[in-house]
């Protein structure tokens, strides 16, 4: 189950989007997140979907693979959808039974909001699928450079992000091992009553936390031993290069935003 998760995973490739400067990608994603909220009727949403499909195409990501990886998040979407269906009033009443009432307005808003959420999920997933964690943190540090003036420790924040990303697979492996070890001791968190299942999580989380803390300490020592002292005097092996395709990508996304704004009603 865990191996299907796409969240935070990077798949190397050679597409236009893979080659873009990570800063350009982050800026585009931020723009897109705003643009998504411009759409307010069917034409806008249709344009959004078409735009998204072409981005997926350009990034050379298999669309089934993408949806498969986001499956775990579907229940959040369904939850939002139902919330709108049951609680938004207006338009004609489609269905009424006891205290349950479904209005046409509710169904429409439900669909729209769900599309928005899917768009946001997909665009951020594409960002992480096409950008290696190192590039991503380099870009965050670089984009956040102005904040250093007001004493925001951007370098340290970026380092924290890259270390956390690096340890996700390690912790997943560790979790699997501990689950196996405890279930060999007869722990049953897959079956039984809810209470006993929740109790069965304790023998999994405690060893996991302990090993995570140990790892963190070892890592900190290893970094100090190799002379790490924060940003001061540090140079970078990878240089970020802003190119023509980055500028054009930003221009395209702004034009798309303007277009969506114009079709608003």
């Amino acid at each position, binding site marked *: 189950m865990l*191996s299907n998760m796409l969240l935070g995973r990077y798949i190397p490739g050679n597409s236009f989007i893979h080659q873009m400067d990570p800063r350009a990608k982050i800026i585009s994603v931020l723009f897109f997140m705003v643009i998504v909220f411009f759409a307010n009727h069917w034409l806008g949403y249709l344009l959004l979907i078409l735009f998204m499909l072409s981005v997926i195409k350009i990034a050379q990501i298999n669309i089934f693979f993408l949806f498969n990886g986001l499956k775990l998040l579907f229940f959040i979407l369904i939850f939002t959808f139902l919330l709108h269906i049951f609680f938004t009033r207006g338009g004609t009443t489609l269905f009424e039974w006891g205290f349950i009432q479904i209005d046409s307005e509710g169904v429409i808003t439900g669909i729209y909001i769900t599309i928005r959420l899917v768009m946001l999920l997909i665009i951020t997933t594409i960002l992480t699928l096409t950008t290696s964690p190192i590039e991503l943190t380099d870009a965050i540090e670089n984009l956040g450079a102005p904040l250093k003036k007001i004493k925001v420790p951007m370098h340290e924040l970026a380092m924290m992000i890259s270390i956390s990303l690096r340890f996700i697979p390690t912790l997943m492996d560790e979790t699997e091992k*501990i689950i*196996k*070890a405890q*279930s*060999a*001791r*007869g722990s*049953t968190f897959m079956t039984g009553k809810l209470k006993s299942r929740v109790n069965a999580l304790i023998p999994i989380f405690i*060893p996991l936390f302990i090993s995570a803390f140990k790892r963190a300490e070892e890592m900190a020592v290893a970094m100090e031993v190799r002379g790490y002292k924060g940003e001061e005097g540090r140079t970078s092996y990878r240089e970020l290069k802003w190119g023509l395709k980055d500028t054009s990508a930003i221009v395209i996304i702004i034009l798309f935003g303007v277009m969506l704004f114009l079709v608003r009603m």
Partner: protein
Amino acid sequence: MNIEVSALTSIYHHRTPFEHIALDELTTTFEQGKYYAVIGRTGSGKSTLIQHLNGLILPTRGNVRVGDLVLKKKTKQKVIHQVKKHVGMVFQFPEHQLFDETILKDVMFGPLNMGLSQEEAKERAEKYLSLLGVPLDQIGRSPFDLSGGQMRKIAIAGILAMEPEVLIVDEPTAGLDPKSHIETMKLFKEIQQEFNITIILVTHDMNDVFEYTDEVKLLGSGKLIKEGRTLDILTDEKLLTDHYLEIPDIVRLAHDVSKKGVALNRMPRNTDEFITLYKKWRDERA
């Protein structure tokens, strides 16, 4: 209780692009009361095989029979839980599974899961902790205050307290100092003889295999290459080198001295035996 593995095939990520055949039509038997070693180079399927023996992984095809219980592709959790009562498993670095506030409580975890009462579980925990040489006035302490070697002992006690008839141990001496290494290996041998349980040892250390085990199963690329008496398999230098395994030091030594004209009566299993046999040979010559 015997374990019969028949035509066991295990495929990871079945029907995906990452498909990998870990075990391929493997058939073998583990008999009650014997000390087995499962050997083979990294990636030969050792770990996968042992995880099948107590239901941590279920077969893709074929089955594993533990006594009367059968593990197949779609075996229910209830049956698997039963199997776990009979087949205990000590993982690599078992000290990583400790979690409870006190040593005693941690050891009681397994027995309680098996459905024993508090008193019975406590009795068992105390029995096995003292068997492993943990002083009973210490068992109210936190397991996390102990040294690595001590923590491992507590973790092993936690498995023994479930009183399995078959005990699987995966690289039990990894990361231990030489003294703890010998102690741990001796302990398993004693337990096996005293309680007449089956032990299945997975290790890369051919010296341990040669000194302690009765029988060997040699795996290669998910298949059973050879099984038989430890004495026969671990003295077959060609077979071992073909599968990237070390020849036990004592076997090499015995071969070398025999070339120099020292004819020992039989193959020694450890250094002490070697010395005894050597003395005997010298006395006979004198």
